[in-house]
């Protein structure tokens, strides 16, 4: 456990992530889809927050925006006070180097060992071999897989793979960790194990974490939950339910109108 004490993760303070009136519209054929329709989200350092919403609510789009993977139609995304909207591709890549992604499908590289996968972000940054190896071992210990470093992803269980992915995200020395349905692809047995790890990292190491999920159980471990419905963000469940009700009613009304025309 001494090794865990030596882990250096960046100490952040203030607002690490903020979106202002964030919009993302797609054209699907001739229909305009408003995936994000004016999202305002503020994440402070050390927070453990979940974005809860059903499929098709704009969750993934939001993840892509705040993960600097895609560009918004309009609005502002500030990461550590920097507006990433005006950045070129290489600058966005630099921003992603400070974000720890954890995906639903783990997204480990199959031909690399667990350790090499954890090393990869540091390799990309150009860190020296010895240094990154030592750090990667520390992160593997931290997620409890110190004895699995030479295993390849295919030789690990789903839960273990996700813990390797978390170790890799930590290796980014992230300003915040961004998780996309982190337990969506693992059995309920190991789910608690992964969520426990996420909770512990936040509490003991103050890792700022944003979890995007449709699973209320996952959201329940976080300290704050925001709700996303039809591309809009709500701070309470009640507001979200109300929005959902209105949206359904509007849909019905439209359908009825159209139905009325046939009479």
């Amino acid at each position, binding site marked *: 456990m001494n090794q865990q004490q030596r882990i250096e993760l960046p100490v952040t303070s203030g607002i690490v992530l903020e979106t202002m009136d964030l919009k993302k519209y797609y054209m699907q054929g001739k229909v305009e889809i408003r995936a994000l329709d004016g999202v305002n989200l503020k994440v402070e350092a050390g927070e453990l927050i979940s974005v809860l919403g059903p499929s098709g609510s704009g969750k993934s789009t939001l993840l892509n925006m705040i*993960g600097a*993977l895609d560009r918004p139609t309009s609005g502002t995304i500030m990461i550590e006070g920097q507006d990433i909207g005006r950045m070129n591709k290489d600058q966005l890549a630099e921003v992603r180097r400070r974000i720890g992604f954890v995906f639903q499908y783990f997204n480990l590289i199959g031909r690399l060992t667990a350790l090499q996968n954890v090393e*990869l972000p540091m*390799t*990309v940054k150009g860190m020296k071999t010895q240094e990154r190896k030592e750090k990667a071992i520390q992160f593997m210990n931290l997620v409890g897989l110190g004895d699995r470093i030479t295993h390849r992803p295919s030789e690990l269980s789903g839960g273990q793979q996700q813990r390797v992915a978390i170790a*890799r995200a930590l290796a980014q020395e992230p300003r915040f960790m961004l998780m996309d349905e982190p337990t969506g692809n693992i059995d309920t047995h190991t789910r608690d194990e992964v969520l426990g790890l996420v909770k512990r990292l936040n509490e003991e190491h103050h890792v700022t974490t944003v979890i995007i999920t449709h699973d209320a159980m996952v959201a329940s471990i976080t300290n704050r939950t925001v709700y996303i419905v039809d591309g809009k963000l709500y701070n309470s469940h009640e507001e979200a339910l109300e929005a959902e009700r209105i949206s359904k009613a509007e849909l019905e009304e439209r359908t009825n109108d159209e139905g009325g025309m046939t009479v």
Partner: protein
Amino acid sequence: MKIVDVIKYSGRSLKVQKGRAVLTVLGVVIGITAIVALNSLVGGFSNIITGQLSQGLSAQTLTVTSGSGGFGGFGGGGGRGAAATISYSNLTGSTDLQSYLKKNGNHVDGVMGVVTISAGQFAQTPSYYSTLNGSSVKYTATITGVDFATYGNSVFYASTFTTTGGLGSIPTDNNSIVIGYSAYHPYDNASTLINYGQNLVLNWRWLNTTAGNCSVNVTGVLAKIQGVSLASLTGGPSNNGIYMPITLAMKIFDTQKLSSIVLHVNSTDQSVIDNVTATTQAYFHSSGTVSVTSATSLLTTLNTVLGTVSALLTAIAAISLIVAGVNIVNIMTVSIIERTREIGILKAIGAKDADILGIFLVEALLIGIIGSLVGIGLGYLGSFGLGSILFRAATGAGGGFGGGFGGGLSTFVPVLSSTLFLEALGFGVGTAVIFALYPAFKASRKPPVEALRYE
């Protein structure tokens, strides 16, 4: 990403996709093997050919022949107009060529007249055959009339016109001849045909109409000349030749006409050769045109021909490199499609477009380097094998060249010059990288969101 890490990463992905990598490398290997094998083969051949042909051939020798064109179009400085008559009087008297050349430039230190009659014949019984049935054999040879003292001096053919290592001696009187080694020992067995010290009747035909015979005494046999010598084409000694004093030749053939005059210049500078050529042509100008052929121009022409053959073979081999290149495009494209998600992951953890481009280009680079090195090795080894097969065919074919080359070809060594090595390496690596450029560029430009979404 550091270049070392890019190389490690690319190397690892080649190692994992071993089967595919081997197939891709194989394409490059085949192309480079073909190029290297053919080139080092031609290199080895041309070394042998020029080595053999230039034996006894001095770069300082110029041959003056009547008319334009010289050796059936081989170089030479011929002009238009009637062919000049080159006669013995051009070598003697008050207006001889040598003094003219001395007056105009003074670059020539040897002048020699040559009379060549192509069909001289001896009816002769081989020494070994006579013990069997005693029948005679007709031996046909080229008869050359030369001034022995000049012909065998150090300026001209001292190295090949010698009986040292042969038999007997070069005659000093005006009625004796010396024979090439083939006339003495034509069958490569225990039997000899014409030996020194013999008196023979020489039958000849001159200008296809006049025929006659004369009695001559053989005083010597020239040492065997190795290989085929270009020197014999320019009037130098050959194994098949029979040599008599020029005065005897002129007497028995009743002519004052010379087949050629051989000049020896004191420098191999092109300017000197050009000057002597022009002076000689000016000397003969009043009687007509002559062509002056430099010995080196024959070699140059030959080397140009060999170079062209080599370039042609390279071009054919290069086609297989293009095929390899298309194969690389294919495999790279498939590999990139399969690794779309990996590209997405790399981008998500902060890899830039340049990093992705680097990874795929380095993969191609490694394929190119491995393929080229293996190809160069195989090509060099292959040219030994190919060479020996070709030689067996050449020597087995017999005939003029077969016999002549027989001795020299056993020493065939393919030539792998450092230039060829570097060119082959450059070709292989260049092909791999150039053909990988487009797929690698495409891979590097994939938007991260799309790449990550790829199943």
